[in-house]
């Protein structure tokens, strides 16, 4: 059984005063296996963030369903959603989303505190994660005192400290310089190697090239996917790049229609 299964997903936005309907996603099907590292690529407005938001239960699909471990996510009650989100899912955002009134340590603790975990347990959990991500020295600092790359590593720590089923990352390298990007992608790969399932949305070929599988999405439709196989990052990079160039051609308008 797949860990994450998306079936016939459709999302239609209606503008506030009735009128126009915008189809953000139509008939999206995809599966993610346990331990996979999947990247979803697409341009701005292609619907990839909408897809991620639905997977994150932050948004609801118009049609279709999402199953996590065979359980329908649509059926979870609003009340339990927040709990589900922080126990089953981990998030990494482009703009870090750290709370400026918490220290780095407390930012990472946040989901655990909400889950009523005792502070000794939290401390034992944070140690290996902080060491792995190289933020042990930053724990007592505040978000405004550290760099963007460091902030994103803190966000990653916050995402994985709950030992979630899946980590959802939305353009995690979008706000980072190239060195920080490299570091972060390496850490993503390492975390994945340890068995963590990751689903990342990005429009960066470099970021996608660290994944095991890349899905291409355009105008609300998943129209292509490629597997890494045994290729190195740079080989995979070239293939993703070629696919993108090739798939940008006119032929795909036909598919969309």
């Amino acid at each position, binding site marked *: 059984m797949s860990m994450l299964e998306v079936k016939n997903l459709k999302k239609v936005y209606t503008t506030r005063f009735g009128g126009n309907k915008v189809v953000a996603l139509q008939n999206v099907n995809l599966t993610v296996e346990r331990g996979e590292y999947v990247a979803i690529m697409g341009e701005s407005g292609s619907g990839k963030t909408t897809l991620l*938001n639905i997977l994150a239960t*932050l*948004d609801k699909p118009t049609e279709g369903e999402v199953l996590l471990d065979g359980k329908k996510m649509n059926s979870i009650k*609003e*009340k339990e*959603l*927040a*709990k589900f*989100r*922080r126990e089953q*899912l981990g*998030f990494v*955002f482009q703009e870090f*989303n*750290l*709370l*400026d*009134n*918490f*220290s780095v340590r*407390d930012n990472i*603790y*946040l*989901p655990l*505190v*909400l889950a*009523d975990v*005792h*502070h000794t347990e*939290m401390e034992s959990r944070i140690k290996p994660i902080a060491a792995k991500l190289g933020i042990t020295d930053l724990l007592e600092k*505040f*978000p*405004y*005192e550290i760099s963007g790359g460091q902030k994103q590593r803190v966000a990653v720590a*916050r995402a994985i400290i709950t030992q979630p089923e899946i980590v959802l990352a939305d353009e995690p390298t979008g706000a980072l310089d190239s060195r920080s990007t490299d570091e972060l992608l390496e850490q993503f790969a390492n975390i994945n190697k340890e068995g963590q399932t990751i689903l990342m949305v990005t429009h960066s070929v470099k970021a996608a090239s660290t994944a095991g599988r890349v899905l291409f999405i355009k105008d609300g439709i998943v129209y292509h996917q490629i597997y890494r196989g045994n290729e190195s990052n740079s080989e995979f990079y070239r293939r993703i790049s070629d696919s993108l160039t090739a798939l940008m051609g006119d032929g795909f308008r036909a598919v969309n229609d």
Partner: protein
Amino acid sequence: MRNIYRSLAVNSLAKNKIIYVPYIISSIMMITITYVIFAISQDPVIAAIEGGYSLQMIMRFGILVMYNVSFFFLIGVSRFVIKQRKKELGLYSVLGMQKKHIIRVQFLENLAVFLISGVCGTIIGAVLSKVVQLGVLKIYHAEADFGWDIQVLPALVNLFAFGLFFFVFFLINAVGILRSNTLEYMKEESKGEKKPKSNWLLAITGVILLAGGYWMSFRSQSAVKAFSLFFYAVILVILGTLALFVAGSITLLNTLKKNKDYYYKTSHFISVSGMLYRMRKNAATLATICIFATMVLVTLSSVLTLYSTVRTLAEEWYPVDFNVVYDSTSEEDVKKTRIEKLRAGAEAAGIEIENFLEYDYYNSFAGVGNGYCTTYPNYSAIETCEVFLMTLDTYNAANGTDLTLEENEVGLVTNGGKMQSGEIRFRTVDAEYRPQEGQSDPYKIVEFPHVPKISYGGSISLVEGVYFFILPSDEALTEVSNYIGQTIREYDDARDFVLINTTSDRQTQLRFYDELQAHQVEYDCMAVESRIANIDEITGLYGGLFFLGIFLSIAFLTITILNMYFSQLLQGYEDSKRFAIMRKVGLSRKEIKRSVNSQIVVVFLLPLLVAVIHTMASYPMVNRILQLFGGCEPKAFLLILGCCILVFAVVYTVAYLMTRRTYLRLVSGAYASK
């Protein structure tokens, strides 16, 4: 080129009206309030009325407080305004404006805000101060001058002070612009906050200052001392409140944070951190709200107490309709002529006489205490009092009583005096307070039930108490007055009095009063007191105080509400960002709302609660001071205080709910966001 800067400045004011309108309105209000207080404190018309001068002294003290408050309040607002606009300024810079150009635009904007608020504030202030002046005069029954006047000196000084303030705001701003680079400037808005640090020293200083202020209040012994210490107590409490809010709150929260078992609980984690930052940003504002709330409560309850009880008191002080004072004489003929003239005059004026009493008593200032009644009172040892000496017959006749005294007894009634029992001797001290030779035999004090029905209100606010000594016989009166009479003769001498009660109406009484006053020589009398005229005068004086008190309360309330509004605005901006993040990280809308609501409620309740505590603590001292103004019933004061607190709490809550809408509008985006 010059025009571009001007139009840029004007445009940005117009475009940012959501933040500039409240800024300008609060500047106008501050300038108005300071001007009115300034103008009243310098107003020669108000100085001329009785009690007006001491009122002005209090208000002059108020001006300094107001300038401090205005400065810190407006600097907070102006920094808030700039912070909201940093992105826009950064954009100007990206688009190719140099720093000096931005600074020039900033200067013009500051100038515009100052000019608008300065002109509006002064005009509104001039109108308001005239209204206050007329109001005070009307209540005082004084001639009102309806001429139009802006007081030039206060207006100029006030404008100069605020001009300086705005210039300082501009300088701070300009330095900020010079020291930052463009990109930093654009990011400024989202820049994080500094870590709030504990400051034990300041927190403890705050506790000590506050304790000092409270101690002064609880230990205040006499009215005069309370009055002179009151301002120091106020300053201590103001500083203590500021220190406690600013340092105490953060120190306490940091201590809570250090306790891991407490801090890392769902219900405490977000609240403690949230409060820490809320207090860091809002502590000074909350302290200001608290201080002004206290001022409203104390002012309002005092003036209400004075105004509501003064009529009862005045009626007690002036129990007879007319009190005509004559130089004492032993010649029966003279007495007879005087009385005939007075009766004839009363009849001519249409006064219907209810009863007509003649009697004589001695009246002087004296020191009473430690078992002695002395003239040339030694202020350090005994209280300065007003003393009336009369015979038992006079007392019985005046009160319609049938009391008796033994030869060595003295009847005593006092209003405000402390000595009520034991023995008393009468004696004289000289100018150096040395007892002169000889003193009366001790008299045993017998407490008498009623204050004699004679008018005694004239100097009641100057002394610690009024004593009526009722002596058993003429001989005793002569003996006593010999011991303390040397000086009595020098100053007041003995008097004969005629008291008239009448059933005539107010107009007739006032006419007769005017007639007597105008023809004192013909009537051979020294002074006339009319109950109605006296009551008019007293209620007028306290009415003036009342009016000013109400005005000040409204001014303080306005400042409180303005502070509240900006505090909500600031918190709204901050919270809207934070909510969005918390939602994404996995808090349900309900959890966020609950946690934030509890913080908001604390921020709302804290100033109110502390203000109520301050007001309660001020009670003993203010109560003493009210005694100085005429001995109000402590129970009445307590009742009025309670009502004031209740009404204020309601008004405060309503104001809070209204300003809260601003907050909710700002955060609703975050609530609704995905």
